[in-house]
């Protein structure tokens, strides 16, 4: 397993999370008020950004936890601390692609090799070590969630998100019916579990057909759910395929909803982007290449793809030339962990003769790295400013995770 960094950071204990908005990843007006107030005060004084930021973050967290949630789902209990690590549960018909998704995202299996995976017969769990330990479990089809002898409590009580994988190249109407049953069951008994739908295997379809199918499935499910009285239940839909980056994008969004530190990280990234004129910033999890936070500008898949490919380049070159530290024993590693600024990895690539940086990457800790796609005007003389701001972001993120 390749990671970018040398020493691990304390993993945070789960803290109460604010209620997320159903389809939107980005946060409601409370935070944007906070950050706009922030910007008017701190623009002349960059070095006070950190203190103000921390104050804003604390303010924002207390606000959102006291607010009524936006989903208007009055059934949901006021938020309680989730025990243990966030858990993801994959469900779907047979051969819909659940094991493939797990293996490709969490265990770095090449998509072409998923042809050789066998049928799953029992509940399989996998964990992914990151700054938060994720567990993902897969429910084989013949163990239906609604069957009476099924031990729901053991499986669903810890689950953060239930993902239904719908194979769009196969007959998906039966899958939709099954999914409705499961969704209703979950809505009634475990309302806190986020329900997500992956409209999977979209790689073989043409562009319009993809969109048509996506819309149709979404419409159908919405209609059925509202017929059954759960129309206000929030369900997210994603088009995915393991052969391109869409599956990583979808998993990123699912995982982000389970992270308690998300609003703090997003606010930090927004601030960074506005001061340094960065087009798009991602906080990548280096192991699985899922991004755990991004800034508020519109997300396009191609930005994610180019950043993800760049992470690959960096990891490969680090592996080739970083052989000194791999051969050295723990001594070298512990020495470097005592210096806090000596060994930070950083990288950038420039395409222009004028020196405009194109992509800028920086390690935050063992598991996280910041990758930015830069806009115009980030030329060499501005580089010092960017370095300084990113340094502040780095420290702020470390503080967020210590909380």
């Amino acid at each position, binding site marked *: 397993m390749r990671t970018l960094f040398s020493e691990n950071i304390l993993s945070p204990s789960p803290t109460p999370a604010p209620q997320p908005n159903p389809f939107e990843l980005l946060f409601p007006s409370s935070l944007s008020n906070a950050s706009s107030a922030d910007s008017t005060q701190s623009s002349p004084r960059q070095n006070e950004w950190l203190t103000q930021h921390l104050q804003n973050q604390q303010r924002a967290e207390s606000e959102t936890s006291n607010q009524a949630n936006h989903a208007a789902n009055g059934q949901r209990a006021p938020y309680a601390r989730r025990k243990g690590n966030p858990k993801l549960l994959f469900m779907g018909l047979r051969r819909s692609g659940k094991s493939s998704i797990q293996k490709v995202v969490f265990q770095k299996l090449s998509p072409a090799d998923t042809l050789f995976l066998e049928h799953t017969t029992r509940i399989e769990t996998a964990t992914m070590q990151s700054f938060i330990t994720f567990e993902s479990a897969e429910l084989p089809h013949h163990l239906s969630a609604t069957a009476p002898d099924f031990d729901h409590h053991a499986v669903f009580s810890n689950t953060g998100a239930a993902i239904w994988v719908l194979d769009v190249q196969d007959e998906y109407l039966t899958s939709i019916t099954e999914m409705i049953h499961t969704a209703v069951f979950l809505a009634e008994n475990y309302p806190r579990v986020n329900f997500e739908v992956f409209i999977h295997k979209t790689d073989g379809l043409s562009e319009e057909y993809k969109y048509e199918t996506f819309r149709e499935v979404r419409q159908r499910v919405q209609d059925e759910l509202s017929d059954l009285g759960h129309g206000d239940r929030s369900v997210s839909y994603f088009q995915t395929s393991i052969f391109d980056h869409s599956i990583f994008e979808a998993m990123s969004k699912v995982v982000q909803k389970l992270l308690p530190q998300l609003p703090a990280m997003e606010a930090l990234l927004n601030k960074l982007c506005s001061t340094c004129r960065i087009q798009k910033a991602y906080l990548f999890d280096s192991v699985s290449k899922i991004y755990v936070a991004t800034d508020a500008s519109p997300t396009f898949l191609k930005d994610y793809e180019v950043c993800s490919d760049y992470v690959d380049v960096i990891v490969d070159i680090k592996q080739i030339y970083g*052989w000194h530290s791999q051969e050295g024993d723990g001594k070298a590693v512990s020495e470097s962990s005592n210096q806090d600024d000596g060994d930070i990895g950083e990288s950038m690539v420039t395409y222009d003769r004028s020196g405009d940086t194109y992509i800028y990457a920086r390690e935050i800790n063992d598991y996280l790295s910041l990758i930015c796609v830069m806009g115009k005007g980030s030329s060499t003389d501005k580089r010092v400013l960017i370095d300084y701001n990113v340094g502040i972001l780095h420290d702020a993120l470390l503080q967020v995770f210590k909380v």
Partner: protein
Amino acid sequence: MERNKRQRQRKVLLMGRSGAGKSSMRSIIFSNYVAKDVRRLGATVDVEHSNIKFMGNLMLNLWDCGGQDSFVESYLTNQRSHVFGSVAVMIFVFDISSKEVESDMHSFAMTIRALHEHSMNSKIFVLVHKMDLVPPEQKATVFQQRAVDVRSTCVDEGFAEQQVEFWATSIWDQSLYKAWTQVVYFLVPNATAIEGMLRRLADLLDARELILYERTTCLVVTHITRESEGQNPYTDRFERISSILKTHKHSMAKHTGTMTSEVSFAEMQIKTGDFMFFIVSFTENTNLAVVMPGDEAAFNAARVNVQLARREFNHLDIVEPSGKEAQRQQ
């Protein structure tokens, strides 16, 4: 003397049975295809010529010859002197998964007999291709066996032992780049001059390693490794870097919406506590990758020094030689 004024044209023949993988290799290396795109390629009809401008005044005249029996017949009979005359390098591709070993060897023997008649001083590179289809434990033995057979055939036909080189390749890993790097290294006219100057530069910069690679194909032209780097466990790192950079070019092209062949970066830097790495464009057709130890001051000094050194290297890699400049070579 006359030759120095013009661009040096070197004729390279690419031959082998039909379906051996010649056009696939050519399109991956020179036309920026990705390994899985080569499924789209059809059978080559007669000869496909490509003229590829390379560094050091070199113009590669690549003849990708169709491998079907009727074409091979015609090369060996009507077009014999046209095809086999004044050849600098012959690249013969064997498909290791083919069942007709005898007939492959026979056709090889016929081909190099014709080659010996018309260009007896040419160099032969034998590429044993599709090695990914061989189970890993048998790879070495199968390759050796084939190499021995082919070598004896070459000697029979009159070529000296050192005129033939053998490489095992596959488009699915970096062995392809390794083999073609050797071909290019053989063809670049002033490789030793370049190496000498790079060695002095490496000593001045105190770099761990310097890698000079050609910009469009990402093939490594030459590299200077200093003693400290000699223990690097990744002995195939140059090919790996070629394939890493190629994939990077593809992903950049996709993002900016340009063609892969037009993508070239001005600079790339990777800095960690252990090592610092940067790639900068060096001459008209090449980029230089420099690996430094992990010291920020030395790194910045190296960047400045490389910029200053570029001027010195330019005359080694002129594209449009005017008469006087070309004669200034050492």
